[in-house]
C-alpha cells in the first residue's frame, strides 16, 4: 500500500505520549503503590570473593515492622542467565563480588527495611579474588564458578573455567598476508565500565494472588522477565503477569531481571505486595553496566593503505556472571572487522569472569569497545603512511554486494556516503585549523536486531484504532513511529491511534525494546495488521455495498465503492453490532541471512540483520595547560533507511552521542581491590547540559529491503563512534594518542607533559 501519498510517515509529528509526560500524568513503575505494600531492601556482600560460613537473619526478622526475610535457603536451587544460567537469585554458598545479593528484607517502611539490613549477621571465609581479566585466564587462576560445568548454557558457547565463551571469525591466511604486507601495525586498547545511567532506577512491585504472580516493573523485556521468573520460581509462565506501566530510560540496562525476582520472593513470603527499588549506589555497584575490555588489533596494509589482513582479540570482562558477555564479546568481532574489505581475517573474542560487577547490554553493547580500537587503529595507520584518514577509509570501505565477515552478502551499503557527508559538513579539508585544534572522524556499522513482533489492532466505533503491542515504549518514540505507519496504512491521522499498555497476559509477544529494532519490527507488524484490518473492513463493507471486496479502496478514513463512501466509524459500529468488532493481527520476523559457517566458530550471532552505516566527525580544541577538551562542532551522518519521524531520530542521535561522549571523556565505574570508589551520581560523571555540544544530524536515507518503508534501526549506533572520533580529533589537535577510555583531561595533560620532557 505505498501508492498513496505519504501523509503521516516522514512527518515531524509530536509523539503520542508527550502530553502525559510534560504534565506529570504519565505512569512509571516507580509510581506504583498498592494497599498494604511493603518496601524491600537487599543485603549485599561487602567482600569480593568469599564462602558464606554463617548467615543469621533471625535478629532482623524480629525487628518491629519487618515482615519477611528471604535467603537462598528459602528458594529453589535454580539459576538464571541470558547465555549461561550461572546466576542465583540470592547467593548460595559463596559471594562473587562486592554487592552480591545475599538476603532480601521486606518491611512496612523503607527506613525499617534499611535498619534491618544492619541486623543481619554474616561470616565470610575470604577466597582469593581476581579482578584482572588476563589473570582470570591464567590456568592457575582462582575459579570464580567452581561448578561451571554444571550450568545450562547456549550450546554454541565454548566455555572453560573462568571463560564463559570464546568466539572466532576466520577468513584466508593472515600470517601469509602479514608477511606480504608493506607494513604491519598493531595497537592495544582498553575500555572502561560504564553504566546506562537511566534516571528511573530499576524498580518492581510484586503481588501474589494464590498461585498467580503479578509484577509491575520497568523492564525493556517483559516476556523475558516472565520467563526468567518462571525459571527461578519454578512455576508456569502462564501464572506470571508482567506489566510495564512506563519506563524511565533503559538503554539496555533494563533488559534482564533486575529487582523483579527480589520483589516476587519477598511478596510470596510476606503474603503482601512488595516494592523494591534500587538505590544509586546499588545501580553503580550491582546493576548491568557495559563490560570493560582489552582489545588488540593488527593490520597488514599495502603502501597505498589497502588492508590485506587483520588480526584482533577482544577480551571482555563480564564480572561475576556472564550476563550478556558471550554475545557482546562475539559481536565485537563484526565491529573489529568494521565496514572494510578485508580478504584475510582472524578475530577472536573471549568473555571471562572476574570478581566485579556483573555486566550486561548497554546500548550497542560492544560497539564503542571495538570501534574505539578499530577506528583509532585506522587513524594511526593513516598517520604513519602519510595518507589522509578519510582517504584511507574510502580506499577500504565495503560496497554494495560485498560480503560481510561471515560471508553474508551486504545490501543497502551506504558507508561511503556517510563518511563523505560527515567529512564535508565538518570541513575536513582544514583538519588542523589552529594550534591545539583538530578534527577527527570515525565510522562504523551496526545491526538492526531481528526477532519477532506481533501486534493487535482494534477498530473502534469512532473509526479510530487501538494498537496493542508487547513492545515497551522506551522513550525513543518507536511506538509513535509504528503508529505513524499504522495510520498511514489506514488513511488515519496519528491522533486516531491509541497505544495500549504492555501486559504479558494480553499483549502479543514481542522480542522487546532492544537492539534498535522496535520501530523496525513493530512497524512491520503494523503494516501486516493494517493489511489484515483492511481485508476485514472490505469484507464487511462489501456486504454493505453489495459489491466484491476487491472493488473497494480506502481513502480519507472511508471505504470507497465507486461514488459511495462508508466511514471507518460506520464500519466499526456495524462490526460491533454484528460480530464482536474487528481485531486485526500482524506478525513479523527477521530470519537470519545466509552465511558461510566455515568462517565463524562458537558465535551466537554470526550475521547481522539489516546492517546500518554511520560516520561521526568532530572539531575540538584542547587546552595546552590542562588538557581539557572543548568540542566546537559535532556532526553525525547516519543511514536510517527511511526517516519515519525525523524529530525523534535526531533525538536518538543527540542522546546517543551524549552517552557516547560520556564514555569517551568522563564516565567510568572505578574499581580498587574489588570495591567501587565512585558509587554516586556526583563522582560517576554523566554529561550535563553544559557538557554536551550541539549535535548536527545528517539523516542518510538508503532504503533497506526489509524495514517498513525502507527504515533501518536507529537507536544504538549514535553511541558507537564518539570515543574513536574524540580520540582521533585529540590526536589531530595535540599529536597525542590516548589508547584507554575515558579520554580525560588528565590523560591528555600527562601526555603533553611527557612529550615536553
Amino acid at each position, binding site marked *: 500500500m505505498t501508492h498513496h501519498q505519504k501523509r503521516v510517515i516522514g512527518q*515531524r509529528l*509530536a*509523539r503520542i*505520549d*508527550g*502530553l*502525559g*509526560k*510534560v*504534565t*506529570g*500524568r*504519565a*505512569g*512509571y513503575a*516507580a*509510581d506504583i*503503590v498498592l494497599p498494604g505494600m511493603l518496601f524491600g531492601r537487599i543485603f549485599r556482600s561487602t567482600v569480593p570473593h568469599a564462602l558464606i560460613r554463617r548467615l543469621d537473619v533471625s535478629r532482623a526478622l524480629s525487628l518491629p515492622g519487618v515482615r519477611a526475610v528471604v535467603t537462598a535457603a528459602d528458594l529453589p536451587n535454580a539459576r538464571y542467565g541470558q547465555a549461561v544460567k550461572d546466576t542465583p537469585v540470592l547467593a548460595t554458598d559463596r559471594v562473587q563480588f562486592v554487592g552480591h545479593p545475599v538476603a532480601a528484607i521486606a518491611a512496612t517502611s523503607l*527506613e525499617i527495611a534499611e535498619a534491618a539490613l544492619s541486623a543481619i549477621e554474616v561470616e565470610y571465609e575470604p577466597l582469593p579474588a581476581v579482578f584482572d581479566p588476563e589473570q582470570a585466564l591464567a590456568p592457575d587462576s582462582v575459579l570464580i564458578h567452581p561448578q561451571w560445568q554444571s550450568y545450562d548454557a547456549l550450546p554454541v558457547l565454548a566455555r572453560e573455567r573462568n571463560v564463559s565463551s570464546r568466539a572466532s571469525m576466520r577468513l584466508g591466511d593472515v600470517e601469509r598476508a602479514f608477511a606480504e604486507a608493506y607494513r604491519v601495525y598493531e595497537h592495544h586498547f582498553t575500555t572502561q565500565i560504564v553504566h*546506562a*545511567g*537511566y*534516571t*528511573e*532506577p530499576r524498580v518492581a512491585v510484586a503481588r501474589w494472588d494464590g498461585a498467580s504472580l503479578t509484577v509491575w516493573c520497568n523492564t525493556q523485556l517483559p516476556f523475558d522477565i516472565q520467563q526468567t521468573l518462571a525459571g527461578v520460581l519454578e512455576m508456569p509462565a502462564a501464572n506470571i503477569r508482567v506489566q510495564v506501566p*512506563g*519506563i*524511565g*530510560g*533503559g*538503554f539496555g540496562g533494563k533488559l534482564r531481571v533486575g529487582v523483579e525476582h527480589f520483589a516476587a520472593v519477598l511478596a510470596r513470603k510476606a503474603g503482601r505486595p512488595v516494592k523494591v*527499588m534500587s*538505590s*544509586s549506589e546499588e545501580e553503580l555497584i550491582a546493576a548491568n553496566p557495559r563490560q570493560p575490555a582489552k582489545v588488540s588489533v593488527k593490520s597488514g596494509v599495502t603502501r597505498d593503505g589497502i588492508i590485506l589482513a587483520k588480526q584482533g582479540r577482544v577480551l571482555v570482562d563480564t564480572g561475576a556472571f556472564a550476563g550478556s558477555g558471550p554475545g557482546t564479546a562475539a559481536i565485537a568481532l563484526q565491529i573489529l572487522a568494521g565496514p572494510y574489505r578485508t580478504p584475510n581475517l582472524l578475530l577472536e573474542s573471549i568473555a571471562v569472569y572476574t570478581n566485579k560487577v556483573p555486566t550486561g547490554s548497554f546500548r550497542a553493547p560492544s560497539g564503542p569497545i571495538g570501534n574505539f580500537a578499530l577506528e583509532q587503529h585506522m587513524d594511526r595507520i593513516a598517520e604513519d603512511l602519510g595518507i589522509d584518514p578519510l582517504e584511507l577509509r574510502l580506499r577500504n570501505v565495503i560496497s554494495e554486494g560485498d560480503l560481510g565477515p561471515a560471508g553474508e552478502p551486504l545490501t543497502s551499503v551506504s558507508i561511503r556516503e556517510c563518511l563523505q557527508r560527515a567529512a564535508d559538513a565538518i570541513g575536513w579539508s582544514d583538519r588542523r585549523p589552529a594550534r591545539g585544534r583538530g578534527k577527527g572522524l570515525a565510522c562504523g556499522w551496526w545491526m538492526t536486531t531481528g526477532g519477532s513482533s506481533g501486534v493487535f489492532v482494534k477498530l473502534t466505533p469512532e473509526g479510530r484504532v487501538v494498537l496493542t503491542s508487547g513492545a515497551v515504549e*522506551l*522513550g*525513543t*518514540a518507536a511506538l509513535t513511529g509504528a503508529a505513524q505507519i499504522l495510520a498511514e496504512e489506514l488513511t488515519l491521522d496519528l491522533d486516531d491511534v491509541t497505544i495500549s499498555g504492555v501486559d504479558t497476559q494480553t499483549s502479543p509477544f514481542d522480542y522487546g525494546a532492544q537492539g534498535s529494532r522496535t520501530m523496525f519490527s513493530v512497524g512491520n507488524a503494523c503494516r501486516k495488521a493494517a493489511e489484515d484490518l483492511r481485508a476485514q473492513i472490505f469484507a464487511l463493507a462489501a456486504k454493505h455495498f453489495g459489491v466484491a471486496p476487491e472493488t473497494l479502496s480506502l481513502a480519507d478514513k472511508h471505504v470507497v465503492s465507486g461514488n459511495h463512501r462508508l466511514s471507518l466509524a460506520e464500519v466499526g459500529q456495524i462490526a460491533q453490532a454484528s460480530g464482536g468488532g474487528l481485531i486485526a493481527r500482524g506478525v513479523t520476523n527477521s530470519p537470519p541471512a545466509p552465511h558461510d559457517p566455515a568462517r565463524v566458530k562458537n558465535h551466537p550471532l554470526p550475521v547481522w540483520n539489516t546492517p546500518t552505516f554511520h560516520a561521526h566527525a568532530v572539531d575540538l580544541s584542547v587546552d595546552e595547560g590542562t588538557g581539557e577538551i572543548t568540542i566546537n562542532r559535532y556532526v553525525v551522518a547516519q543511514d536510517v533507511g527511511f526517516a519515519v519521524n525525523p*524529530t*525523534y531520530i*535526531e*533525538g536518538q*542521535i*543527540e*542522546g*546517543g*552521542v*551524549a*552517552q557516547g561522549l560520556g564514555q569517551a571523556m568522563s564516565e567510568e565505574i572505578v574499581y580498587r581491590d574489588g570495591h567501587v570508589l565512585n558509587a*554516586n*551520581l*556526583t563522582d560517576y560523571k*554523566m554529561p*550535563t*547540559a*553544559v557538557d*554536551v555540544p*550541539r*549535535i548536527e544530524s545528517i539523516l542518510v536515507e538508503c532504503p533497506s529491503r526489509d524495514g517498513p518503508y525502507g527504515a533501518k534501526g536507529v537507536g544504538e549506533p549514535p553511541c558507537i563512534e564518539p570515543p574513536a572520533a574524540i580520540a582521533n580529533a585529540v590526536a589531530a589537535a595535540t599529536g597525542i594518542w590516548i589508547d584507554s577510555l575515558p579520554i580525560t583531561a588528565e590523560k591528555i595533560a600527562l601526555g603533553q607533559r611527557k612529550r615536553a620532557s
Partner: protein
Amino acid sequence: MSKATVELLINGERHSVDVEHHWTLLYVLRNVLGLTGTKENCLEAECGVCTVLLDGAAVASCILLALQCVGRSITTIEGLAHGDQLHPLQQAFIEHGSVQCGYCIPGMILTAKSYLDENPGPHTDSEIREGLAGTLCRCTGYQKIVDAVAQVARERQP
C-alpha cells in the same frame, strides 16, 4: 518517631498532612499525597528529577524536609498547567520533541521555569545550558530541551 500535623500549600491548594519529622517533601508528595509527577531517583540531590518550586525557586525535594515547607508555596508539575491550558514550557517541550522517556521532564521543566523566572534574559544557549545543568537527562542529549527553553525565553522578551 514523632509525627506532626502540618499544612502544606501545594499548587495553590492547602493540604493538612500528618508527617513524620524526617520525611522529605518528595516522600510526602509521592507517597502521602499521590502527586507522583515529581520523580524519585538518587535521593541525594545529584540528579534533579525530583525538582519542585519552593516559593518559585527550583529545589531538590529529596533533601528538603516536609516540615521546612510549612508556610511556603510549593509548585509541582501537576500545578503548572491551568486546566487544559499547558504552560508555554510544557507546550514547547512537546513541539520541539524534547521528551523521550520523560522521567526527568517534570524536574527539567520546573528547573527551566525557575531559571527563566529568575533571569529575564535575553539568553544565549550556553546560559540556558548552565541554568539546566543541575538536572540530568540521559535520553535527549539536552539539545531539544535547550531549543524548547530558548523558544519560550524568546517569546518572553518584550
